[in-house]
C-alpha cells in the first residue's frame, strides 16, 4: 500500500482551466519528485524538492506549471491554463534523501484529463 498520498485520483478540466493536485509524501521523507507519465508510459521529470527548496526542475518556460512543498502542508503541482497535451498521469514520489541508492516511493497518481 502506497504511503504517498495523492489527491485527487482523477481530475477533469476544460482547456484553459487551472488544475491543481496535491501530494503528501511518506512520513520522514524530505525529498519529493513530480513526474508526468503520458499514455505511452513515458516519464517526464518535472521538479523535485528537498523540504521546501527546489533541487532540480525542467525548463518550465511556458510558466504554466508551478509547484511547491510548503512546510506542514501537502506539496502541490498546479497547471495554470490546462491544454489537451497536459492530459496524463501525474506521479508524486518521495525518498529519504538524494543519494544515488535512494529508492523512490510513488503515490497512485492523479490522472488529469483535459477536454
Amino acid at each position: 500500500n502506497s504511503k504517498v498520498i495523492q489527491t485527487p485520483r482523477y481530475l477533469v478540466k476544460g482547456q484553459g482551466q487551472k488544475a491543481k493536485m496535491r501530494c503528501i509524501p511518506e512520513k520522514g521523507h524530505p525529498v519529493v519528485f513530480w513526474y508526468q507519465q503520458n499514455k505511452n508510459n513515458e516519464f517526464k521529470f518535472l521538479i523535485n524538492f528537498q523540504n521546501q527548496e527546489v533541487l532540480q526542475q525542467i525548463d518550465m518556460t511556458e510558466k504554466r506549471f508551478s509547484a511547491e512543498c510548503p512546510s506542514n502542508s501537502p506539496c502541490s503541482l498546479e497547471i495554470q491554463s490546462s491544454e489537451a497535451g497536459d492530459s496524463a498521469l501525474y506521479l508524486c514520489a518521495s525518498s529519504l534523501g538524494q543519494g544515488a541508492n535512494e529508492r523512490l516511493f510513488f503515490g497512485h497518481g492523479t490522472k488529469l484529463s483535459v477536454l
Partner: protein
Amino acid sequence: QQQVRQSSQSLTVWEGETAILNCSYENSAFDYFPWYQQFPGEGPALLIAIRSVSDKKEDGRFTIFFNKREKNLSLHIKDSQPGDSATYFCAPTSGGNYKPTFGKGTSLVVHP
C-alpha cells in the same frame, strides 16, 4: 536522444517460463539501476535494484544481470506467474545528479 532504452515494448510468456526484460543506457555516470513494477491504476513500486559495482543481484524469482562495459542490464523473472503481469521500468540514477531517468517500459503479460 533516448538515454535509457528498453528494447521490448511488450513481452508475452507462459506461466512457469522465464521472462527476460532488457535495458541499455548511454550515460556512463549512471551507477544505480532500479527496476520498478507498475500495475494499471497504480504508481510504480521498486522491485529490485543493482549498483554498478556488482554484476548480478538476486531476490527470490527476480535477478538482474548487469554488464557495465556494454552498458546494458537485464531483469530475469523466473517461474513467471500471472500476477507478474505488469509494466516494468528501468530507471537508472547517478550520484551526481539524482533524478531517475525512466525507460519507456516493457509490458509483460504472463498467460496461465
